[in-house]
């Protein structure tokens, strides 16, 4: 496998607080990597650094062998790294259709046209197809603020996937989603991801989701990578049990992987 994304000794400090330190992570093409860690372990800081939202204090981020440190979110995203957010980042007062149309409008033009219409038949049809792929067509005319959390999450991920990224970073995709809906949501997302062939790195607190969908697992603790490897290996790691997951979990990881 070839390394798509590689971080070397990545670190970020906020004054005296070290949010991330010595992070060496490699993501290969087509991998689906889960990330676990308690609150404040540095997971979101890591995603924010990779996507250009936060500048690292030190270290290197390589995407397909080239450094992307210092690039802004737009440049990182155009390079092929897209993300979704812990709290879905949408246009709340607009309809679902408008959200997708805006995304298409921005995606298709480097310089936004001033006069040509956006809501053309072709664009609306394309938007409908996207919403159908994510199973949210019925919400098309609804304003985002009125949507259930799961639909917002799906829309957020759908917008992130529009550019057909090579790596998709998902920050807690099932947080705030009803227990009954989390696997449906992840199934929909993974179907779209497999179709595009993108590698995925997703931060998650739900161990069932982690076990079912990741092919590799990284555990963060105190801003550092505590363990990195096969899901069952990381989950059975004594340090991970002690510092991240606790000893009480009773999940058959082999069986969960078979569910996926």
């Amino acid at each position, binding site marked *: 496998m070839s390394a798509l994304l590689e971080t070397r000794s990545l670190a970020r400090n906020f004054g005296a607080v070290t949010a991330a330190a010595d992070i060496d992570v490699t993501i290969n093409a087509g991998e689906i990597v889960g990330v676990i860690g308690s609150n404040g372990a540095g997971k979101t800081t890591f995603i924010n650094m990779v996507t250009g939202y936060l500048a690292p204090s030190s270290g290197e981020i390589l995407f397909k062998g080239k450094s992307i440190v210092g690039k802004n*979110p737009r440049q990182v995203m155009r390079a092929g790294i897209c993300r979704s957010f812990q709290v879905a980042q*949408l246009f709340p007062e607009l309809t679902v259709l408008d959200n997708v149309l805006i995304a298409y409008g921005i995606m298709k033009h480097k310089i936004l046209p001033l006069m*040509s219409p956006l809501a053309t038949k072709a664009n609306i049809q394309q938007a409908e197809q996207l919403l159908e792929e994510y199973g949210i067509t019925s919400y098309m005319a609804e304003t985002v603020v009125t949507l259930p959390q799961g639909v917002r999450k799906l829309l957020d991920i759908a917008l992130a996937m529009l*550019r057909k990224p090579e790596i998709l970073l998902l920050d807690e995709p099932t947080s705030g989603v009803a227990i009954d809906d989390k696997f449906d949501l992840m199934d929909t997302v993974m179907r779209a991801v497999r179709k595009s062939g993108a590698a995925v790195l997703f931060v998650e607190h739900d161990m069932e989701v982690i076990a079912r969908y990741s092919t590799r697992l990284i555990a963060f603790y105190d801003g550092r990578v505590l363990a990195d490897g096969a899901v069952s290996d990381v989950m059975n790691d004594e340090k991970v049990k002690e510092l991240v997951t606790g000893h009480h979990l009773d999940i058959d990881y082999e069986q969960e992987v078979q569910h996926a």
Partner: protein
Amino acid sequence: MKYATTMIIGAGIALLAAGLFMPGWLTFLLTLAFAKGLVVMGLLLLMRAGLVSFGQGLYYCLGAYCVGIAGDYFETQNALLLILLAVVVCVALAAVIGLLLCRYRDIFFAMFSMAFSMILYGVLVKSSAFGSSDGFNVKPPLLFGWTPTGESGPFLAYGLAVVALVGVGIFVWRYLRSPMGYAGEAVRENEIRVEYLGASVRRIIYTKYLLAAAMAGLGGGITALAAGHIDPEMAYWTTSGEFVFIALMGGVGHAAGPVIGAVLFELLRTYAFQISPYTWQMILGISLLVIILYLPKGVWSLVERVTKGKPL
């Protein structure tokens, strides 16, 4: 799209035809209203992106002074050339100021824009060459060598205002439906998502600022030609406040909102002044209060409710 364009052009022709039979006072009043409508259409672009400028008076005044100064000092009376000059100068200044302003939001954007407007006011008040606080008279304009006299005098500026209104109206109407138009609303709603979709928020705001400046310069230039006199008050913060007042009154949901607001404002002000010369501002204030309470999206929303069959 073609239907709307035809409608706007049709409305323009009707206004031009009506102008031939209007009394002089109404022609003048509508010219000023349309000129202000142009400024507010620019303000609409900013307001839809969540930015309220309290400094459009800067470009309104600058546009007017460009017309006046060019007419006086460069012996040019060609109305089209003067207005073009006003727009170009305003866009040039906005290109510089916009670089700073597009970094700010909310109250900071409003106050910064007002500060620049007040700087121009201060400079003009102290400039005896431009008539200080009294301002100076603008030479009567020419159009392709034709000098309007007598009854046709006010009609030239009125005609220019209507033509400009039609042109800018079509532009704004199409703009609001374009990717850049939608991007404005996207910026108002969530800047982070806009950046992560691949567009530069600053560039979007900068573009809107330039367009708004061009429209304000155009409105200022037409006002100078219509009124025949300019003074620094045009850059004073109350003038900019007037534009925000009109935007709230007319609504920013449609390109027609600012025009309706501007006409309503001018009519209200004229009659309020006639009825109560010492407290006319109070009448305007109460009117705005009533509109905000009962039509929070402006008078245009009333038209929308009627045409879309929504309850009043």
